[in-house]
């Protein structure tokens, strides 16, 4: 009998070890260390990749690879006629992850949903300030403190959000990372043990992967969560190998040290495409690179001057020299992949002679101005200094003298907001939630002093923006936003430069990876063939 037991134990051990040896592993070369694993306090894409998109789930989710909303932890929802009440029916039987540091005793319920939002909202919550100086920037940035009136538990599996005003982007907002649902039971356990900090170091969620280990600045390890309500993942282990330099990430991918990498350097893309073991997926980015005139300062307060300056710029030369084929000329303030994009609008033609004449007709001679160049590379603008130099040369052709200025990144953005700022300011935007309002708000009157660097407040545009926010019918909203884009193009507060492409190089053995228009990296549904 003893021998039989020993044999059985040996067999079990062998099968477990064998299973370990055959465990499917996906290594992702990520670009930066996460600040923490709480999905809500931070705002970096790398933070979201490491926390919210792997470990957590939300009430609603963006359809994989799209920006349409699908059920998540909420299996259904209703919206009141006045658009002020959203009632969500939670999916029953959703399990929080069981780890060596937490064993849940109950399934997800309305208490978890309420806690997830109130900790970011109510200053009296002990969790509001559990991380010293936490800003809950996304919650505040999306206007939730003013938008939310109350969150009511109707029953264990029903929760109602009551708003102060109608907000059509409320559902997409709930699909964003900061709106991830955390475990109240786990928080209570840490409260009792007076170890609240652990909440961001050892996370618990309901997502496809559970946290295993983090070696600071080096490696994050996850395992597939067996109890995931969306079904167990095909890969067993997910590993983030943090590699900050893009050239080194590319070398690691080529050497087989990782299976997939983020943000390749433009110069490395051709080499990666040529590698027989690799494939490079690409997608139009949900972004825009622009240059905003200060429309409150003379002569940029005149539409014809702004139009003339737009017509002086050779966008194709910028696309060739800076984006190197990884971008397309931008016409509207929203990308072409977004719903409500107005295809009928034509771009201002590149015509230096006509531009020169328009300036003369507007009474502008010997114009000297500044072109602001960002000090950092961004997906929507990989090299602002080079773009500034090209525009400077184009302006010289129409007799405009331009001086290029740049400052440290946070200083740059602060100076750009000043109402007496001189000249044209380069910046850009990457969408958060796939709603057109998430781009057009950049030009709203309320955004002056914050994200409206054109300092442009046009009542016709603003009226359409507000109308769009209060309209629930998508067809109706589409018309409103198409009209808003026409007003934008007519008034030209920006030079729309480009929408860039995003590349995702990976080993050919990786399948099922879907590029996300919102720029996040999701590994649910990914498989690796040996």
């Amino acid at each position, binding site marked *: 009998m003893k021998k039989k037991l020993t044999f059985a134990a040996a067999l079990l051990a062998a099968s477990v070890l064998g299973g370990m040896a055959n465990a499917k592993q996906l290594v992702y070369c990520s670009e930066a260390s996460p600040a923490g694993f709480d999905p809500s306090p931070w*705002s970096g894409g790398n933070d979201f990749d490491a926390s919210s998109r792997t470990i957590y789930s939300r009430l609603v989710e963006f359809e994989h690879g799209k920006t349409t909303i699908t059920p998540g932890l909420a299996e259904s929802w209703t919206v009141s006629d006045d658009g002020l009440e959203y009632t969500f029916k939670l999916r029953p039987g959703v399990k929080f992850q069981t780890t060596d540091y937490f064993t849940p005793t109950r399934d997800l319920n309305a208490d978890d949903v309420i806690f997830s939002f109130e900790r970011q909202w109510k200053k009296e919550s002990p969790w509001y300030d559990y991380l010293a*100086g936490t*800003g809950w*920037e996304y919650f505040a940035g999306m206007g939730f403190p003013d938008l939310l009136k109350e969150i009511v538990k109707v029953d264990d599996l029903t929760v109602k959000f009551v708003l102060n005003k109608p907000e059509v982007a409320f559902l997409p907002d709930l699909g964003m990372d900061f709106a991830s649902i955390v475990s109240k039971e786990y928080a209570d356990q840490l409260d009792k043990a007076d170890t609240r900090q652990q909440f961001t170091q050892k996370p618990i969620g309901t997502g496809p992967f559970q946290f295993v280990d983090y070696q600071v*600045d*080096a490696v994050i390890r996850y395992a597939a969560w067996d109890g995931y309500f969306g079904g167990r993942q095909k890969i067993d282990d997910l590993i983030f190998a943090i590699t900050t330099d893009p050239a080194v990430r590319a070398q690691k991918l080529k050497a087989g040290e990782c299976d997939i990498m983020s943000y390749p350097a433009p110069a490395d893309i051709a080499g990666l495409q040529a590698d027989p073991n690799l494939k490079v997926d690409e997608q139009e980015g949900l972004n825009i690179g622009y240059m905003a005139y200060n429309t409150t300062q003379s002569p940029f307060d005149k539409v014809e001057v702004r139009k003339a300056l737009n017509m002086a710029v050779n966008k194709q030369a910028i696309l060739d020299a800076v984006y190197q084929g990884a971008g397309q000329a931008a016409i509207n303030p929203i990308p072409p992949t977004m719903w409500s994009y107005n295809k009928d609008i034509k771009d201002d033609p590149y015509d230096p002679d006509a531009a020169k004449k328009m300036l003369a007709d507007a009474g502008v001679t010997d114009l000297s101005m500044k072109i602001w160049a960002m000090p950092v590379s961004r997906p929507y603008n990989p090299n602002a200094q080079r773009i500034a130099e090209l525009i400077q040369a184009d302006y010289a052709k129409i007799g405009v003298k331009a001086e290029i200025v740049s400052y440290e990144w946070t200083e740059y953005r602060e100076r750009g907001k000043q109402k007496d700022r001189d000249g044209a300011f380069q910046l850009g935007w990457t969408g958060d939630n796939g709603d057109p309002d998430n781009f057009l708000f950049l030009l709203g009157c309320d955004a002056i002093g914050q994200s409206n660097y054109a300092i442009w407040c046009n009542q016709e545009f603003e009226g359409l923006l507000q109308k769009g926010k209060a309209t629930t019918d998508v067809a109706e909203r589409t018309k409103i936003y198409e009209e808003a884009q026409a007003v934008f193009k007519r008034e030209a507060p920006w030079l729309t430069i480009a929408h860039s492409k995003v590349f995702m190089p990976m080993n050919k053995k990786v399948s099922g990876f879907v590029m996300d228009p919102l720029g996040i990296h999701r590994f649910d549904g990914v498989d690796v063939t040996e």
Partner: protein
Amino acid sequence: MLRYLLHKLALIIPTVFGISLAAFAFVRLLPGDPILALAGERGVSPERYAELVERFGYNRPYVIQYLEYIGRVLTGDFGISIATKRPVLGEFQALFPATLELATIALIIAVLIGIPAGIFAAVKRGSWFDQATMGVALTGYSMPIFWWGLLLIIFFSGYLGWTPVSGRIGLQYFFKPTTGFMLIDSLISGKSGAFRSAASHLILPAIVLATIPLAVIARQTRSAMLEVLGEDYVRTARAKGLAPRRVIGLHAFRNALIPVVTTIGLQVGTLMAGAILTETIFSWPGIGKWMIDAIGKRDYVVVQSGLLIIALIVMAVNLIVDVLYAVINPRIRVQ
């Protein structure tokens, strides 16, 4: 000896305060703002900004901020990172072993190659070996670390496939760190192949980090040896018929050692500075990469406390070197 040690310690105290003040001022002189950096491109409303400035205490006079900071440091509290909300000392302790391991191996490489190369170049002064060694040393000293590191990665990891590209150990090896030193932890883990993997991951970053100290040590050893080899007592030793190896090893090298030891001590600072770039290239999770990230995020707390801790370590090493002088050369004690 005790008096000598106390004298050196007395010099360290004002230096520490000077460095803490410099670090505190340096990070605030940099353009940029930690709260805006934290908020990202979405920005932050003026009201929220004012609230956060108040919470972090950045609206108070600099003198008060400094005095509070130094008061906390004296009680062992180096503050909490603005970006990650983790204690700075905890982050430092988690990351420092990686830097120390890399720097130690780099220093060993630099000493083991630099000193013999310098001695040989001095003994064979003017020979092709001397010329070649000093030429290579000058090249190594002038080489930008970032470029050199990438070049080695592309050639040895990418083209030849001999070494891993980056990291500290193969991802198949997963064990909880015991000491933080991967070479030791991999041995303790008992996992087959782990030590070899850890060692292979060390090769390229250690070579890159060792390059400049190696060049400096080789050049310093050569010039110190040349000076000593011309001394009367060396000539006397030779005239007495001592074997050349004994003359060089015992009489010349021992006396040339003081400036060489000084140089090696000073290389600790160079290694810390070099680690910043080396760790960034090789994704080496040490304090160099940590500091670079903190400067980028204008994380005042990490930068000022991190610089202070690093300075304390460099000063401690230099104190040890000073004590070593006194051991090597009793005249220094007397002076």
